[in-house]
């Protein structure tokens, strides 16, 4: 995973919002947390199993996080600690108070 900052946060932030929209439309309780979790795995470009193994978490934790079933404060630390590296505007989290 690259840890360099992106030149602009606008595109990635927009994309996270759109991903959260998809999860919200599917009835997710914590769509922004789910979108951020999916984005973290997207940054790794790994499938769920490889990703769970690499991060040392269970597949169930991955699925719950990415489906928006886990609030942001309860995400596995292995996921939440990687969110700052997405290069998004973190004030976007304010859009999802339930997160």
């Amino acid at each position, binding site marked *: 995973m690259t840890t360099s900052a992106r030149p602009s946060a*606008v595109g990635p932030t*927009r*994309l996270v919002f*759109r991903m959260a929209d998809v999860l919200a439309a599917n009835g997710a309780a914590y769509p922004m947390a*789910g979108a951020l979790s999916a*984005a973290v795995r997207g940054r790794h*470009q790994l499938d769920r199993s490889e990703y769970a193994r690499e991060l040392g978490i269970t597949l169930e934790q991955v699925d719950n996080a990415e489906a928006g079933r886990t609030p942001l404060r309860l995400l596995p630390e292995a996921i939440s600690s990687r969110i700052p590296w997405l290069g998004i505007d973190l004030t976007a989290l304010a859009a999802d108070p339930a997160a």
Partner: protein
Amino acid sequence: MTSPDDPLEPLMAAMAAGDLAALWSFHETYEAKLRAVVLANVRSMHRPDIVRDAERIDSLTADAAMVIFDRAAGWKPGGAKPWNWAARAIRSMIAAEIGHRQVELGNDDTLDGEAGSAPVMSDADLTIEGIVALAPELEPLVHVWRSVSSARDQEAAWLFRVQKENHDPSPARTVADEFGISPANARKIHERHFTRVNAVIWADERYEPLRHWDWFAA
């Protein structure tokens, strides 16, 4: 075609299955391609203000990725690249996001003989059928336009012609971006199609009314 190392096909398959992580990867991996398509569209819509607005382009580029995500299930591996395959949907999204411009069809000598009565059109009307809906006297144009080449060439030639009328500085590039072909090929398709249409119009009396339109006037 994609190379064995190209992640495009697995990413498209994952997006087709609704995997949002794949959408993020797709955007990161192909952002430059998506941005080029967005910029070409915005330029062809004569919005230099938006072309210069990097944040707006970033935002439209993310939305273009979303357009492809929404349609990923319909993409066929080995076919056109997704950003070309979904070019029309991306263009529609951009038009909806930045607003429809209003353009005039350049036929002021028109079939009804009133100068200045050319129909005012929005992007949504710029299909051949859309134009005929506004100017029913042009209906024969649909017949002749649809009769002289393949469906793809008809659409490409039409887009080329409309972009030219709209003062697109490079209609060939716009058509090339939309259809996943080279600008030279776009030019060739337009020239071949238009020459055939023109020949039919001047050979067949049923199309006599079209001869007064400035596209075809001698």
